């Protein structure tokens, strides 16, 4: 009787809270409509479009060379990989094969991009969970890569180094040495990441068993990249559908089966080691050759459909080009990894606390322009 009275007095009510569009843990303009009961999440409803630029519509009026420049505004932390995806799709349509030199350089720069992206993610996952130091450690190491990009590609973030048929220009004479210097540096610093954060008791308690995603759900929701691989879904496009020079290097696909936020964290740490190993295998053997296979100034793809999948830092990126034989594509679709990964968020955070939602989102590593496009 007394218990019932207490229950009546302590009765809670469901209500709505806006998380975002300017919430620091969203890392951009993502608005989540939370239905909560006390601190328990009942429903997460993402409201998108705050940075929607309709890149797909813009592609329909642009030439194939111009499209490349739009793609690094999607997932700006995998800009080189996005560029590469479009270039590979256009090259597939033109039926041209780029030289080995281009393939190897693209692969090295892709892996450097992945490293820089994961470094930034590692910095902000600490920050989201209350450990500010990680941010400075990560940015110290990320500067090395950005400097390499600046020297070779001319830009630090949106590189536009790829063009259909090859590369904009050859690598800088310092490129090989600076990449090697970076590898020596980062191989001593990555264990520091583990010592600082991975083993931390607070960090472990915030992430272990939080936001658990099963393998079946990962496949059904199309959750790829570290999110899928943390749940045991072997979805690495570099392994399943190799492109560029990934068929000539040996690397392990980072797979964990726990499916929680800590597993997704471990996948990315392991991927950083594997990326360094890939660069190690290639950096001393960049073949000689042309950096550009000549294409016509105005590229016209033959009539048909062309699809290219690549592994961006956040998962699978798909580029679908439908051509009617003119100089503009008839339809372009970008299957972005963040969009599919976001769809699983509601499913795995129902019943969790708001703080767990922040931890889960940090382990998902959302880049909002990639979701909105």
């Amino acid at each position: 009787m007394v218990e019932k009275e207490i229950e009546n007095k302590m009765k809670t009510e469901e209500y709505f809270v806006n998380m975002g569009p300017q919430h620091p843990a969203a890392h951009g303009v993502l608005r989540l409509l939370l239905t909560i009961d006390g601190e328990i999440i009942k429903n997460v409803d993402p409201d998108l479009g705050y940075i929607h630029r309709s890149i797909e519509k813009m592609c329909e009026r642009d030439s194939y060379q111009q499209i490349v420049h739009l793609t690094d505004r999607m997932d700006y932390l995998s800009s080189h990989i996005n560029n590469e995806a479009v270039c590979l799709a256009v090259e597939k349509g033109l039926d041209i094969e780029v030289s080995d030199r281009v393939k190897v350089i693209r692969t090295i720069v892709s892996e450097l991009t992945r490293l820089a992206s994961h470094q930034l993610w590692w910095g902000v996952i600490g920050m989201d969970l209350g450990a500010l130091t990680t941010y400075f450690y990560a940015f110290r190491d990320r500067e090395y890569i950005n400097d390499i990009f600046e020297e070779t590609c001319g830009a630090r973030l949106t590189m536009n180094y790829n063009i259909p048929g090859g590369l904009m220009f050859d690598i800088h004479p310092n490129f090989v040495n600076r990449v090697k210097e970076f590898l020596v540096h980062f191989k001593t610093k990555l264990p520091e990441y583990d010592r600082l954060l991975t083993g931390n008791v607070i960090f472990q308690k915030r992430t272990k068993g939080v936001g658990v995603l099963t393998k079946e759900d990962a496949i059904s929701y199309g959750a790829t990249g570290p999110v899928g691989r943390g749940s045991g879904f072997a979805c690495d496009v570099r392994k399943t559908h190799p492109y560029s020079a990934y068929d000539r290097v040996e690397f392990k696909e980072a797979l964990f089966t726990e499916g929680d936020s800590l597993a997704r964290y471990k996948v990315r740490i392991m991927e950083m080691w594997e990326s360094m190993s890939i660069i190690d295998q290639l950096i001393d053997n960049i073949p000689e050759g042309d950096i550009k296979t000549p294409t016509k100034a105005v590229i016209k793809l033959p009539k048909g459909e062309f699809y290219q999948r690549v592994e961006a830092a956040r998962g699978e990126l798909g580029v679908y080009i439908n051509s009617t034989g003119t100089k503009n594509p008839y339809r372009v679709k970008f299957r972005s990894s963040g969009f599919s990964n976001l769809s699983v968020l509601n499913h795995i955070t129902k019943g969790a606390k708001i703080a767990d939602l922040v931890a889960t989102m940090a382990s998902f590593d959302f880049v909002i322009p990639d979701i909105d496009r």
Partner: protein
Amino acid sequence: MKNEDLQNIINGFGKNLEFTTEESEFLNVIVPKEQLHEVCEQLKTNPDLKFDYLYCLTGMDWGSDLGVIYHLESTELKHLIVVKVKTDDRENPTLDSVCDIWRTAEFHEMEVYDFFGIKFNNHPNLKRLFLTPDWDGWPLRKDYVDEANMIIK
């Protein structure tokens, strides 16, 4: 599995579907919209097909027809297929939702609704996803006109 084998198994459904590999690297299956859900269900559950991973869902405006393209992969058996469905009703295009088969379709179908105005039966939460609820028209359709914001060359 080879495309011919895939085609034979799918023909076994007894649905009289249209197949083509022209202008595409994949085997394309064109499904009438009335049979879409049933065929998709079988593509996923048939033990020889097991298409469990919908890796891309694209809305399409072919000029006279609107439709959706599904890119499917089997994570276990490693084969790929493309399913296409069309509707010639531009006023009120309606297709069946496949989000009970592949959960990822829920968000992608919302995107298709937002840009093409294709409605999906049995979708749990069909709404404007990127654009505002009062947006007029369907921007990715070929007959969409927006004189203020579109640059036409």
